[in-house]
């Protein structure tokens, strides 16, 4: 069992880093501008990340599984470790990076090492989604901006009341954002461990049945929660005060827009509903919450000033991340798998 925990550690570390960084996308402005207390944000964020991961995490994980089903636990460990190391190293080098893109690169690295074919249709679907994600977030926030502006103009509520409503709205939208983050991004944290999940199916208190995969997601969710509690505060203070200078109402729009995107790309129920009504179904793919947020901020910038104050270099940086992150992560994954197999004598594929 202790060996299993050691092998899961790289995934848990990815979860921790996700909690530490991405929770700030949801609650950063609210906490940074003192609209919400950090403790409130951390408790609500943790609970909803775990709920989202356990209930709706399967959809996006399934797509990652199609890209490459890592079938030996040492391989899963190495793939997650390569992704985690890429995120850590690129963050240190101040390069744009996303866990979703690092994990995909690492899985492709495993496919190449194990001599498995990469499912190109799954890969195309994933890469298209990366591009669509910030664009869709921008479209949502652009539309929400005008809707909220219209509502504020005609509601005639006082500045003090608006403040109270905004706080409540930030809390609710934060809970939704955390749910969507858990549902969409748990695939990055635990996806590569699904084929080798060491847990049995169980029933908690005779009422809540949990599958082996859901148990894995619960563990990943807890790792994200630990990340939120232990490290996200300082990231939130930075987001709230420097990078994106947003008003609390602006933050509400950005969080809602980016959470909607994450939700769309994670909700199997919505996909079933859409296809049953003869509408085009969304692919369920883990996307980058940071890129969704950047897209949403750009959307507000466009709505506010017609794009005059928008820094378009940000778009270039995101585009660079789409290519650089998976390439670096894939190469590292290949090298680490080689070391794991030949130095530590562990089977990295079946």
């Amino acid at each position, binding site marked *: 069992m202790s060996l299993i925990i050691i092998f899961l550690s790289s995934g848990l570390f990815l979860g921790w880093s996700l909690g530490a960084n991405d929770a700030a996308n949801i609650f950063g402005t609210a906490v940074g501008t003192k609209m919400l207390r950090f403790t409130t944000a951390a408790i609500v964020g943790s609970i909803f990340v775990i709920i989202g991961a356990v209930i709706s995490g399967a959809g996006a994980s399934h797509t990652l599984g199609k890209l490459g089903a890592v079938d030996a636990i040492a391989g899963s460990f190495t793939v997650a470790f390569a992704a985690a190391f890429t995120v850590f190293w690129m963050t240190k080098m101040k390069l744009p990076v996303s866990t979703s893109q690092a994990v995909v690169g690492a899985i492709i690295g495993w496919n190449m090492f194990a001599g498995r074919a990469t499912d190109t249709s799954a890969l195309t679907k994933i890469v298209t989604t990366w591009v669509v994600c910030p664009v869709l977030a921008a479209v949502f926030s652009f539309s929400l901006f005008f809707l909220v502006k219209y509502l504020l103009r005609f509601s*005639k509520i006082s500045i003090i009341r608006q403040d109270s409503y905004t706080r409540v709205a930030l809390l609710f939208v934060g809970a939704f954002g955390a749910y969507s983050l858990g549902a969409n991004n748990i695939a990055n944290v635990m996806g590569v461990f699904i084929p080798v999940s060491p847990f049995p199916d169980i029933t908690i208190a005779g009422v809540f049945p949990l599958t082996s995969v859901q148990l894995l997601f619960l563990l990943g969710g807890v790792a994200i929660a630990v990340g939120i509690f232990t490290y996200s505060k300082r990231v939130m203070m930075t987001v709230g005060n420097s990078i994106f200078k947003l008003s609390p109402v602006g933050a509400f729009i950005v969080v809602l827009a980016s959470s909607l995107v994450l939700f769309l790309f994670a909700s199997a129920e919505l996909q079933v509903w859409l296809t049953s009504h003869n509408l085009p179904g969304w692919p369920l793919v883990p996307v980058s919450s940071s890129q969704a947020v950047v897209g949403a901020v750009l959307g507000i910038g466009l709505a506010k000033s017609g794009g005059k104050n928008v820094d378009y270099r940000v778009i270039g940086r995101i585009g660079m991340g789409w290519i650089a992150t998976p390439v670096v992560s894939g190469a590292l994954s290949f090298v680490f798998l080689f070391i794991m197999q030949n130095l530590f004598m562990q089977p990295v594929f079946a």
Partner: protein
Amino acid sequence: MSLLFNQTSQIEGDIESLLDNISKSVMIFSAAIKNYLNDEIDIFLKRMSEVKELETSVDELRRQIRYKLYTKMLIPESRGDMLSLLETIDNVIDTTEEVLVQFDIQKPKIPKELNKDILELVETSCKAADFTVMAARGYIKNSELINDYINKTYFYEHEADRVENRIKRQLFDSNEIVSDLAEKMHISKFVELIAKLSDDGQDVCERLSVATIKRSI
């Protein structure tokens, strides 16, 4: 959550009362100067004490609002703007009180020939102050009319300056109305004091226009 909304209602009520009291004091101020010019000193003194009471209650309300905004952590983003608005709009009621007190202490001799112009100055200055209170209400209530009120305040402030200069010219251009230089200076000082009311309004509106831009989403 109901606690949050209770506090919200309390502060909204406090701000409403504060602005109401400033608005009342401006009306009483205008009536009091008319009484002074018509030698109705008893009524003038009564009105002056009413303005003093209003000024005391505005100070108390301002202190309570500041205390609640900080201790209950309300409107963290606009708190600074809100407090500076309350500080500067307080100058409006302070000026109404100060002018009446100085009239009572110094008892300037205003010649009847100047009554009409002085009343025009009082009316214009009070209009500027009225529109200032409306603009402040517009800021707090998120009204799109706020820019109209700010522009009207600026307009009446210019008008007040014009009337102020006209009265001073009448005073200093010849010795027909008043011959003694000390008296001229004395009346001129009071004309400036009355016009200060519109200047206070302009200060508030300058802050308000910046705060309004900052408040947009």
